[in-house]
């Protein structure tokens, strides 16, 4: 029988070891060695994740999948790891979109070794975040994500103002310090508590409320909701490299996942009565982002606006304190991530063709059939049509909001419609024939790339029908 701890440690260790191999690989013009090592690491990890899915299905008992490691003596800290289907889905989604981004980014980026090194380090850290089950291990990986993100933005972000990168890091670090403060406070009172037990905290005492409030605020530092939106938008909107853009866009996911993990089972009315303010602020933030996204013709900006709007939407979904939304969270975010990553990769592919041929991309999809198919499907999934699990979660969140707070939900729906309009606007632009477009059907998606994207599309579609279709009995 395979030790579950071994499997959990492997999916963290493999990208890290891959990173070391990439770092020591020989420098060549196209860095093919480094590229191969990175692809191999990710594919190996995906196969192990698939095995773990089957193992979970076989075990059916959650306590078998919790492992504890004695780490420090002073202070006395043990690290606990556990895994369930939601965590695995999110880990799988991130692996797939990073694989997609690396493949599509391969031919275009310089300093490939650095980008692959830090991408694999990011993958290792975020995988660790998802399998952490106690407050300290969660914090270690939560903070550990910042290092590769910072290095990627600095090296490949092609940003002129370096001070904005430093400000971005310091801003996130302040959030981490606040989070560390709450973690230590929790540790002083409850010891090294696991996240499962943390959810059962009693909110009758005032210090428990302060702990929860401070923790949520610290985690919201990474989510682009007002007033925390400035730093991430100042960095994300200027990134040109699609792999770096994808990774930085995944940063709010760590905050969102943190809120998902730290969300208590029971919230007293004294606290939940203030959630209406979060709804109002969230709705207004979404409206602002949607308008900015619509007014800017740059597709990368629109994708950033789309991602930010959905992060805020899922945040509002968690604050709704609705069990159905909470249970569907993993599946919705899984399909959201696949759509986001693949859309960014395809958009970047079109953009690179534009640069290469020194022409406009308007009308390109009229000539590129394969690209047209995949791009259309991704856009329709992104706007929330019933072809992915995003539809279900959108439906649940909108219906809850409309039933509880009609005013802010109208703004929310309006914002969602604007960003959908922006994405549809983009696809209409690409499908409107233009004689000035010099990109021919030869520049269509290569067949192997097309087959790979088809597989992702299949997974997005199946997320709506049966998300765990790929899990087999061992």
């Amino acid at each position, binding site marked *: 029988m395979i030790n579950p701890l071994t499997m959990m440690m492997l999916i963290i260790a493999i990208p890290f070891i891959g990173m070391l191999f990439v*770092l020591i690989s020989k420098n060549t013009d196209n860095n093919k060695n480094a590229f191969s090592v990175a692809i191999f690491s990710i594919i190996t990890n995906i196969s192990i994740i698939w095995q773990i899915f089957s193992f979970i299905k076989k075990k059916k008992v959650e306590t078998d999948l919790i492992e504890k490691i004695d*780490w420090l003596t002073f202070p006395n800290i043990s690290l606990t790891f556990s895994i369930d289907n939601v965590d695995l889905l999110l880990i799988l989604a991130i692996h797939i979109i990073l694989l997609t981004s690396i493949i599509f980014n391969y031919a275009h980026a310089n300093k490939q070794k650095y980008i692959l090194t830090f991408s694999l380090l990011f993958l290792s850290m975020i995988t660790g975040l998802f399998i952490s089950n106690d407050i300290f291990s969660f914090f270690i*990986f939560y903070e*550990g994500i910042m290092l590769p993100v910072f290095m990627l933005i600095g090296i490949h972000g092609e940003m002129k103002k370096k001070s904005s990168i*430093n400000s971005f890091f310091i801003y996130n670090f302040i959030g981490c310090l606040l989070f560390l403060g709450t973690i230590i406070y929790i*540790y002083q009172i409850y010891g090294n508590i696991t996240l499962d037990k943390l959810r059962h905290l009693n909110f009758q005492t005032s210090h428990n409320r302060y702990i929860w409030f401070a923790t949520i605020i610290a985690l919201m530092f990474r989510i682009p909701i007002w007033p925390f939106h400035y730093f991430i938008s100042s960095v994300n909107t200027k990134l040109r490299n699609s792999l770096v853009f994808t990774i930085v866009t995944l940063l709010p996911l760590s905050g969102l996942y943190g809120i998902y993990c730290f969300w208590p089972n029971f919230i007293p009315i004294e606290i939940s009565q203030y959630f209406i303010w979060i709804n109002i602020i969230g709705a207004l933030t979404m409206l602002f982002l949607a308008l900015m996204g619509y007014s800017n013709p740059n597709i990368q900006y629109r994708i950033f606006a789309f991602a930010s709007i959905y992060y805020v939407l899922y945040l509002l979904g968690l604050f709704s304190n609705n069990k159905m939304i909470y249970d569907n969270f993993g599946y919705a975010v899984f399909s959201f991530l696949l759509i986001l990553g693949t859309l960014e990769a395809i958009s970047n592919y079109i953009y690179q063709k534009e640069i290469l041929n020194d022409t406009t991309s308007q009308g390109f999809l009229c000539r590129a059939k394969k690209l047209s198919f995949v791009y259309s499907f991704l856009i329709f999934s992104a706007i929330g049509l019933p072809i992915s699990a995003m539809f279900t979660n959108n439906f649940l969140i909108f219906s809850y909001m409309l039933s509880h707070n009609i005013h802010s939900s109208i703004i929310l729906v309006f914002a969602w419609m604007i960003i959908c309009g922006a994405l549809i606007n983009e696809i209409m632009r690409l499908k409107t024939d233009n004689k000035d477009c010099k990109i021919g059907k030869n520049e269509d998606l290569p067949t192997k790339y097309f087959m790979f994207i088809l597989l992702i599309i299949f997974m997005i579609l199946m997320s709506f029908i049966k998300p765990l279709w790929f899990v087999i009995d061992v």
Partner: protein
Amino acid sequence: MENWFVMLPEIWLIIYVAIASIVNRYRKSKTPKTFFTLAKYFLFVEILLTLVFYNKSAFASFWQNTSFTTLFKVIVYLLTLGWLYLSSKWFLNKNHPSCLFCCIIFIMLTAMSLLASSSNLLTLLSCFIVICSCYILLMFQYSHNDKRTVYTKQYIYTFLVFLFLSISAIFWLYYTSGSVFYKDIKLYFSNTIQMDIYTISAVVSLISMFVFLLGLAPFHIWIVKFWENGILPIYGFITLVPPLLYLCSFINLWKECLSFAKFSSISFILIPAYISIILGAISANGEKNIRCLFGYLSMYCIGFAITGFANMDNLAIIASFAYTIIALLSFFGIYTIFLSFKSHNDYIEDLDAIKGFSQLRPYMSAGFIIFIFSLTGLAPTLGFIGYLSIINNLFANNAWLSLGICITGILLCVRICLQIINYIYFADNTQKYDRAEKSTYICLFVNMTIIFAALINPNWLFHYIFIILNESTQ
């Protein structure tokens, strides 16, 4: 006779001085490496002797060896061994005679070893005089500045002030208690109901001696001159090795002698620690000289360590010790990399000259990131464990002022580290570097291995150390 036999570790260090002098006088084919090779063997034997006689005390009224002092001494000897190994490359490169340097280092080691084990104020004073005399010699002999005579005189005047204060303090304590032995003084004043202003002043004067030795603000000017003007081996040794034994000696003095004056002694050591944290971090921010920058960071780290153990209970000392060891490992790694900042046979000191260093030395730059972020305490580097230990302890003792100052210092430290990374990674390369020595890579590899192993399993590094500290500080 037995007393002299038990003193073999200290005598062995003096024997080196004698043998080195003889070799220097009579051996014709000596090179700078000769004395380092000799020092290497002497230090190996010294470590063995220290471990053998770990709890044996000669002339017990003057100094006492315990497992606590032995632990600090062994670490210091190991650090000296590593640093002398690297320094030998500097001396070989410059073809500079090294006999005097090695002899002064060994005399300092003897004095610092006796300082750490002292159980008598006269021993303390004698060691203080010898150590400061060694500093005067080092400053005068190894400064590459025309104003070295001026700086040496300034240092002598400052030293004389502190010497006068120390002598006055010892005289007063002897006058009132009738003894210069730690235990007698502690016993006498513990039975005293109220202390007068002269006794408090005497305690403060003794502590100020350590503030001066450690180079804490506001008495740090002399050490800044060392950073600016001293050669690289001196710079590295002064910032790495002595502070650990000074801290050991101070803890010993406080626990065995001055604990009767808890409030005044702790307040008087905390105020310079606070100032050092803030001033060290702020001064490092504005520095363009790499050595001064890291010199100020070392001042910040010493201030942080003292803030950590100011409470003087077991856990505080253990937390502070963990932090200090981790900081020393990081600094050792950084100073190792300094030796590769070499162009046209000159060692680079200007921060602008290391722009784009990562493009020519990717592995060293990767190590530099790890050490730098370890100093900021970013998870999952080893420095996080050190910061966590101290912050957790401050939380437990409700030391909110100390906590606030530490967090401010951390944020300022982060800013400096980001600036350095901007230079190394995000700027274009403008400098050609000489080929790095093999010894640099060896030391870097060993350092990184220790760091990674300690990160995955901290108990491997700290378990027995914590047991020794816990038993000896109770």
